């Protein structure tokens, strides 16, 4: 069949190809004003507005079965952080795919192997998620002090990564506009509504939602000094599962003989 295209020359290594693809992808993201604007304004808007507007009574929280209380504004800051990072990372993932879909197929044809392309895109997503996490944390930490900062940051990153991968997958499956609606609606509903620790009556199926494990870990890190190991493991497992699905969809979408 196909005698293959360029890229099989041993003069350029796979690592170099991946590195170039990631570097170019970062340049592209950097030059997308809407993504940059979102990174700057969204956390401030979502986290900041809530914190500013909400009163300061105490709210009763049910964390891991134990009851505790927290100030309303601290709660708002802690809780809007995963919402912000989920929206940010989801949109980044979406834009990543939309801007590059047609050209990625061509890149495959030019000789980038499927694996190299996937690694490059996942790497790019990881970098994007780190940036989104940083942007959200910057605002959150200005508004309140979590009990375990490291765990809080890690949990935030995991929420972002989950939604980033979902954003990529949605970007491959749905068209632009539909993708935007889904990636805006989903984090709000999932994280803000269904993973809310104020809720005492959550139905069991909410545990299957993407934000569940990471958000639980995040809330624990915010208001207690415990480490929710089970939730962290669950969150990582969830990321791996969605990643596997996303990679599968990506392979098919950029397939070349």
């Amino acid at each position, binding site marked *: 069949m196909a005698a293959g295209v360029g890229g099989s020359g041993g003069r350029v290594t796979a690592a170099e190809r991946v590195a170039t693809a990631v570097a170019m992808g970062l340049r592209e993201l950097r030059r997308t004003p*809407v993504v940059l604007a*979102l990174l700057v304004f*969204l956390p401030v*808007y*979502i986290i900041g*507005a*809530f914190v500013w*507007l*909400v*009163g300061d*009574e105490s*709210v*009763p929280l049910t964390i891991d079965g134990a009851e505790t209380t927290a100030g*309303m504004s601290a709660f708002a800051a802690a809780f809007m952080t995963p919402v912000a990072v989920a*929206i940010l990372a989801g*949109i980044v993932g979406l834009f990543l795919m*939309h801007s590059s879909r047609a050209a990625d197929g061509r890149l495959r044809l030019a000789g980038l192997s499927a694996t190299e392309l996937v690694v490059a895109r996942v790497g790019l997503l990881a970098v994007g998620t780190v940036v989104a996490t940083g942007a959200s944390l910057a605002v959150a930490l200005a508004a309140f002090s979590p009990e375990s900062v490291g765990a809080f940051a890690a949990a935030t990153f995991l929420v972002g990564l989950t939604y980033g991968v979902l954003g990529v997958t949605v970007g491959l499956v749905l*068209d*632009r*506009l*539909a993708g*935007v*609606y889904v990636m*805006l*609606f989903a984090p*709000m*509903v999932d994280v*803000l*509504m*269904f993973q*809310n620790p*104020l*809720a*005492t*009556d*959550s*139905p069991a199926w*909410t545990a299957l939602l993407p934000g569940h494990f990471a958000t639980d870990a995040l809330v624990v890190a915010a208001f207690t000094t415990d480490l929710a190991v089970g939730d962290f493991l669950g969150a990582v497992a969830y990321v791996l599962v969605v990643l596997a699905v996303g990679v599968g969809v990506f392979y098919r979408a950029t397939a070349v003989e």
Partner: protein
Amino acid sequence: MTGEARTAGLNAAVRRAVAGTAASTRSFFREPLTIALLLALPAVSIEIYGASLGQFPELGVFASVGSLETTGRITGAVFATGALAGVLGLFQMISARDADRRLALCGFRGVELLGARFATVLVVSGAIAAVSTATLAGLLTTSIGAPLGVFLGLVLAGVIYGLIGVLVGSVLPRELEGSLVLVILADMDNVFASGLFAIDESVTRFAPLSQPHELVTRAVVDGTLAVDHAVAALGHVAVFGVAAVAAYTYQVERGGDD
């Protein structure tokens, strides 16, 4: 101009206005995605907001009238109406930048174009509000006291956000980015307006969706028509209306150069 010529001119103008409105309404409804969203989003939004709020205990923390589940459903309806109408306004503005200038060259007057566009926003907002009202009535566990109040509140939510959509479209005339901004705005606005969080009312009454939200809530729970909130909502309409007209005129005059 003679009386006859004037009448003929007026007739022609009316025909053009109707044609213009019909054209843009038709193209809105021909997008399969739009129709799908129009039919599905209200129901999905109402159900999800209802279910998610239903899981919270009926605490005094939440400053809401009526049960949380009902509040949730109302919030869902208001959000869906606002978001859809906003996106409509956005798309109207985007196509206006490109097409209306050309229509003007073909003989449409500026005023007619503007009228047609805004009439479209009104008509489609009405349609969206109707769908949302029907869905809400169907999904609410309690019966609605004053259905007309519900419809009125939702129409106002739609019109207000349709105008906001036009404004966003004049600043950010890109479908994807504009929708992003609009839905985020509507989302947060809706959360504040829902009265779920004990936020000072002096602040929240500026949230564009707060007045329609109140209207609908009163209509559902009390069965009353909250005239004061209706008036306040109309105030929002006036403010955004003026801004939107100004933005539209400026954009179409400058014409689709991006």
